[in-house]
């Protein structure tokens, strides 16, 4: 292989699939103004995934995000195929299958299309190299464990879990994947963007001094919902309407705002040790979630991080992060 980065390396060392192929860490050794030296490890961004033998992916969860992730997987480089699909609903699977065929000329054989709550295992067992997990996050820990147990590389959408039990399961499975040399990448895409990475490198090098506070926002209009249908069971209805149900989505903070909070954790290099917040439900049509939140996080060095998020139409919108340092700010 002529490429300096082989596909095996690509899979073995850094990242698989995803919107932007992210490969091979490079070390930025920079000197902060006060003389501190920080080693910042950042992925090196390629324009596309390196060439190599065909890589077959199986998609679990064929909704909008799953169809998007599968399409992006195929677009990420040469010789990439989606060869198996799994979902609980046949209509979602069919529309995804159609879309892949139409847009990417990617056909999935009948015997590799699986329907039902056990479809995930069948996709995993269908002879694929990479698994794409894009169901509602409630199912993620179980699916991730099954994929790693079968020694598959995994791309999984965020969030990776909806509760502490699920989060611990993900952490343990990730350790197993690490010890088996598998590659795992999640859909927190800001970590894989050139502009975020170069900003991080500068902030870490001390461009804005010590971080003294941070804010993050996910203030947008209403997300979609589905109306109940007399032909559906309660379970079917909830799963079709999943972004409105806590047990399936983890609520707004976990489901969407996790992107911004993750950036703050990344830039500050810490996780909060304390949090006080409130929220309420004003306009949400279905489900059991709130539609607005405000949370004051505190880090172990006393730095406060304020987070707000909202899903209500007709208000000021803002999805971003802001970090204040002693010498300047970054947003």
């Amino acid at each position, binding site marked *: 292989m002529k490429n300096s980065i082989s596909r095996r390396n690509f899979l073995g060392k850094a990242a698989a699939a995803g919107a932007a192929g992210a490969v091979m860490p490079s070390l930025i050794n920079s000197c902060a103004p006060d003389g501190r030296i920080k080693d910042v490890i950042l992925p090196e961004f390629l324009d596309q995934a390196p060439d190599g033998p065909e890589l077959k992916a199986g998609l679990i969860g064929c909704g909008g995000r799953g169809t998007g992730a599968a399409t992006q997987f195929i677009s990420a480089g040469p010789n990439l195929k989606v060869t198996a699909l799994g979902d609980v609903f046949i209509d979602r699977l069919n529309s995804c299958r159609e879309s892949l065929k139409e847009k990417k000329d990617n056909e999935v054989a009948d015997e590799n299309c699986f329907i039902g709550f056990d479809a995930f295992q069948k996709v995993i067992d269908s002879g694929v190299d990479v698994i794409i997990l894009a169901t509602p996050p409630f199912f993620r820990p179980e699916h991730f464990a099954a994929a790693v*147990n079968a020694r598959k590389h995994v791309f999984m959408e965020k969030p990776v879990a909806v509760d*502490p039990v699920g989060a*611990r*399961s993900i*952490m*343990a*499975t990730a*350790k*197993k994947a*690490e*010890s*088996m040399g598998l590659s795992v990448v999640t859909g927190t895409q800001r970590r894989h963007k050139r502009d975020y990475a170069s900003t991080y490198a500068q902030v870490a090098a001390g461009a804005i001094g010590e971080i003294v506070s941070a804010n993050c926002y996910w203030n947008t209009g209403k997300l979609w919902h589905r109306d109940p249908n007399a032909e559906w069971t309660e379970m079917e209805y909830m799963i079709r309407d999943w972004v409105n149900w806590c047990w399936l989505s983890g609520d707004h903070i976990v489901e969407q705002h996790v992107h911004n909070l993750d950036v703050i954790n990344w830039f500050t290099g810490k996780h909060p040790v304390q949090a006080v917040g409130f929220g309420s439900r004003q306009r949400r049509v279905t489900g059991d979630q709130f539609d607005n939140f405000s949370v004051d996080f505190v880090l172990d060095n006393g730095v406060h991080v304020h987070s707000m998020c909202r899903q209500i139409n007709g208000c000021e919108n803002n999805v971003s992060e802001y970090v204040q340092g002693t010498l300047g700010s970054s947003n």
Partner: protein
Amino acid sequence: MKRFWIIFLPGVVLGMTLILGSNKAIRVTSKNEFCASCHIHPQATTSWKQSVHYITRSGDKTGCVECHLPPKGQGHIPAKIRTGLRDLWGQLFKDPEEFDWEEKSRLENARKHVPEITCLNCHETLFTPELSKEGEEAHLYYDQAEKTDDLHCINCHLNAGHYIEGYMHGGNESFGMQDKEPEIIYDEPAPVSSFYSFTEYIPGSSVSFEMIAVPGGEYIMGSPENEPFREKDEGPQVKVTISEFFMGKVEVTWDEYLAFYAQTSSEGRTTDTEGSRARSDADAISGATPPYGQPDQNWGMGDRPVISITHHAAENYCKWLSQVTGKTYRLPTEAEWEYACRAGTQTPYFFEGDPKDFQRTGFLSGIRKNDTSKINTFVIYHGNSPAKTQEPDAVKPNPFRLNNMLGNVAEFCSDWYSAEAYSIYPESGIADPSGPTSGEERVIRGGSFRDQAGNLRSAARDHTKTDQWLRTDPQIPKSKWWYSDCYHVGFRVVCEYDQKTGNY
């Protein structure tokens, strides 16, 4: 030049011989057979051969040195010399018959003989593909926890190198189940109408226990500054008046506790937060969830004092006992406990003797042979039972007829612990004090089978150590009913009595 060679060549030869010789010596002395040739506790070899480190899936046997000495290049040789010298000393001057091997094998001692690096040296990944769900959670806890000396692989894998019969580290759902129907079942609790000692019957069980009438009185709580082994928290001394009460003659036994456990324990945690549990007038007492591991340490139950239970569990036992007997049972206050223990004495013990003569620590302790018959008559302690609890009638009672006030197991009191607790009481004296109004840990008193004589004085104070005592419980959340790492504390109940009304 010739002289140089004459000195140099033999030097090289001698050096080589020494290196080869010492390598050979290290090899020979590292063999399992060499270890077994001096270590005259055959049980160590037997239990090793029954363990998973001998009967392995791969067929490779893990030898003595691989677990008991750090790996080569990581302090192997110094540790080998150190343990070698100690073994030689033991071989020459000590009598293996006198060792209590069971005690030496207990976790806190075993930790000293298994450097954790030896475990991690072979077990490079803690997250193997076949790891169970429980194992994942436990290893994640280990991985994320602060690395301290008391968190060691063998906390959970104590039987990995030496097989221990009955050892378990897992959910113990069947614990405390009775396999046969008891012959007598009491229907009614004991009627009490006057202030005399009585035998209580636990309705719905075959269990009875003796309650001693402790007359009211006055005493000096705490110890004088010149008392041997005195700690600062035992003062200033306070004059305390105590009202009369009944107190359990012995520490609450396994039989008594299991009567509570059998009637109230719940198999798992319920998620019912809206039903009858949420009603403010609920009249049921909720009982313990099943333990993780073997709370009686396989020492046997029956009349032995209950151990491994939390302060919360002890308090709930008292609430339940009050409900089924129609009396007011509770934990003693610290002041009541010391009053009952002293039983009219103001000396370090309720029997004659100087703590210094009974203490067995330090290099010369083996040489001094003091008369310890007195303390041996009244107390189960390190000097006569270093490894485990004993049945209550193994010793004589104090002047109030209470057994094991000192020793056997330490006992929970109802007070919050504070080192300055006594300084908040007025100098003029106080009646029935109940300690600080809030705190983090609870008072425990009386010392246990593990303690030396100095810690067993009537005035000696100690307290619960919640975090430390739950260190190896891998459950999330950790149990509030069972301590995973505390097997030397139990409790004793008191029953209130009102002289004026005759109500209890």
